């Protein structure tokens, strides 16, 4: 079957514009498919990361945490926020029925001034009780986080000397964490002693004391709760909300469910857009192939008269379609690659949802699937025209043309 292939190559070389439009359409197919799948997978991975990082059954924050800089903002978008509940309220939470374990977190925002390396969210946690941050840190750092050490999120730039300055003091960066796709990638973590020291330094350094009226030694920004086995999480949540007036408890499942709903909505919109684009492109491809095959009736008739079998003509059309589709699909994929990776930060902030780029293996799978589907669409749409042409009698093809 050398002749059909070489003829197909010659046809494309001699009439590139004839095939360019088809190539463009297939390019569009692979582009949209990869981009859509890439975005959806990134959001799904982001949600997984978010779920894993939350690690608690209930999250309690002070009422003042509502609005800008809320826990959601910190977790999802990396927006900095500081709010505190008193140690008395924390004790009440600990003593609520159904609470098995609690872990306090203390939030602090570094200043955008000479005293600090950069403005980031600093999260203090209790290594003895923590079940949320520590498992994640242990993925990249197995040692204990000592006093004066910090661990930074994946998006925080790591200085060469591994030292970061907060409120006039330098801290050693013990480790950098893996990407989660959440706002935590832009945060700095330290144990409670270190963060409280930073808070005290901030209190004495800053003109307006952000901790006025706050007992730094006992206050907390968030309390993560693990409930006793078998107890109803929503009952415990309601109990806290009813009896401790200055705090707001949310079940982690509800928080994830909100995000999950948002993600599902965005995924559906992306999926629908990709489907509409595909439908349109496939219909146009069908029409283009049909018009093109019709225009080439005489060419096929001449080949038949010379002795080409209908299978040979079919193979010529198939070879052309494969080459044109592969070219379009590869170019579309490369464009989609470039756009997906370069726009991932913009997409993340636009969507306001957890967003974690797929790993190399997943990118390879998505690329392969996009290529195969786009090329298949190109081939299948040409198949109908090819079948119609090869099913016609040669003399009739020739006669209708002349």
């Amino acid at each position: 079957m050398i002749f059909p292939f070489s003829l197909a190559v010659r046809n494309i070389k001699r009439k590139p514009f004839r095939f360019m439009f088809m190539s463009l359409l297939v390019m569009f197919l692979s582009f949209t498919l990869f981009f859509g799948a890439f975005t959806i997978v990134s959001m799904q991975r982001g949600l997984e990361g978010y779920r894993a990082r939350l690690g608690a059954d209930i999250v309690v924050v002070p009422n003042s945490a509502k609005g800008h800089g809320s826990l959601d903002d910190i977790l999802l978008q990396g927006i900095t926020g500081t709010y505190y509940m008193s140690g008395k309220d924390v004790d009440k939470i600990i003593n609520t029925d159904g609470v098995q374990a609690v872990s306090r977190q203390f939030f602090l925002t570094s200043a955008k001034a000479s005293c600090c390396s950069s403005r980031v969210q600093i999260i203090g946690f209790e290594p003895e009780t923590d079940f949320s941050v520590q498992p994640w840190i242990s993925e990249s750092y197995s040692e204990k986080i000592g006093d004066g050490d910090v661990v930074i999120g994946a998006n925080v730039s790591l200085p060469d000397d591994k030292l970061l300055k907060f409120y006039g003091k330098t801290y050693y960066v013990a480790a950098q964490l893996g990407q989660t796709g959440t706002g935590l990638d832009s945060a700095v973590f330290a144990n409670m002693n270190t963060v409280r020291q930073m808070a005290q330094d901030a209190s004495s350094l800053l003109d307006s004391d952000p901790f006025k009226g706050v007992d730094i030694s006992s206050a907390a920004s968030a309390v993560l709760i693990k409930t006793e086995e078998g107890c109803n999480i929503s009952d415990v949540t309601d109990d806290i909300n009813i009896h401790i007036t200055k705090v707001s408890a949310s079940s982690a499942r509800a928080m994830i469910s909100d995000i999950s709903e948002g993600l599902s909505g965005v995924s559906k919109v992306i999926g629908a857009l990709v489907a509409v684009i595909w439908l349109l492109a496939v219909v146009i491809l069908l029409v283009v192939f049909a018009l093109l095959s019709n225009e080439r009736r005489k060419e096929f008739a001449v080949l038949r008269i010379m002795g080409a079998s209908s299978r040979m003509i079919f193979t010529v059309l198939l070879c052309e379609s494969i080459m044109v589709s592969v070219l379009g699909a590869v170019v579309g994929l490369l464009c989609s690659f470039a756009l997906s990776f370069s726009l991932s930060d913009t997409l993340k902030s636009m969507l306001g949802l957890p967003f974690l780029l797929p790993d190399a293996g997943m990118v390879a799978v998505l690329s392969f699937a996009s290529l195969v589907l786009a090329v298949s669409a190109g081939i299948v749409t040409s198949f109908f025209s090819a079948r119609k042409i090869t099913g016609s009698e040669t003399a009739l093809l020739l006669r209708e043309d002349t």
Partner: protein
Amino acid sequence: MKLTAKGISRRFFRNARNSNYFYAVEKTDLDLEEGKITVLIGRSGSGKTTLINMLAGVLTPTEGSVMLDGQDIYKLSDTDRSITRCRHIGYIPQGQTGLQSLTVLENVLAPSVMYPSNSDQTKYAHELLNAMRIDDLSDIYSNELSGGELRRMSIARALINSPEIIIADEPTADLDNDTTSLVLGLFRQLADNGASVLIVTHESDVLSYADRVCKMDKGILKISD
């Protein structure tokens, strides 16, 4: 190699007041004899092209059979019929039939490379192009040729596999007198070497080359020796 048509006819569908079909060719018998030139004449629309299309294996008869050395070519599979057509029947259809993505030489060589073959026909292709006086145009693309040059190219292409049966539909339509003589002389030579040649024409010059003249009239073939 002998080509014989037995009782072939061809019916086409057409919306008309009294009938929705008509016979372009009525039941016809025809032998193409080895070493002879048969000339087929007739008015436009008389069914000449339909008849030779059936003989060339590119239009299935409504009834009857076309036998090539005793084998009904329409009973062969499409692939086998195509191979038979490629190797044994040189068909020169009406009109301009160049493949535009190929050069003149590649056009002529195309039937020889369609199916696996041991021999390289490039030298013979040049001989044919030379005989047709277009060898100097062998490297240009067929869409750059004039009507007469295209005609000569398709004649050379039909002869590249040295077919035993040659069927030509108005082969000299676009040619000047000199080239017409050249082409008809070549057909005479091929017939003298044993080929069966069938020429459809409107031109009286061709009749002087004929061993036998057939006339088509309203789908009915009349043979006069």
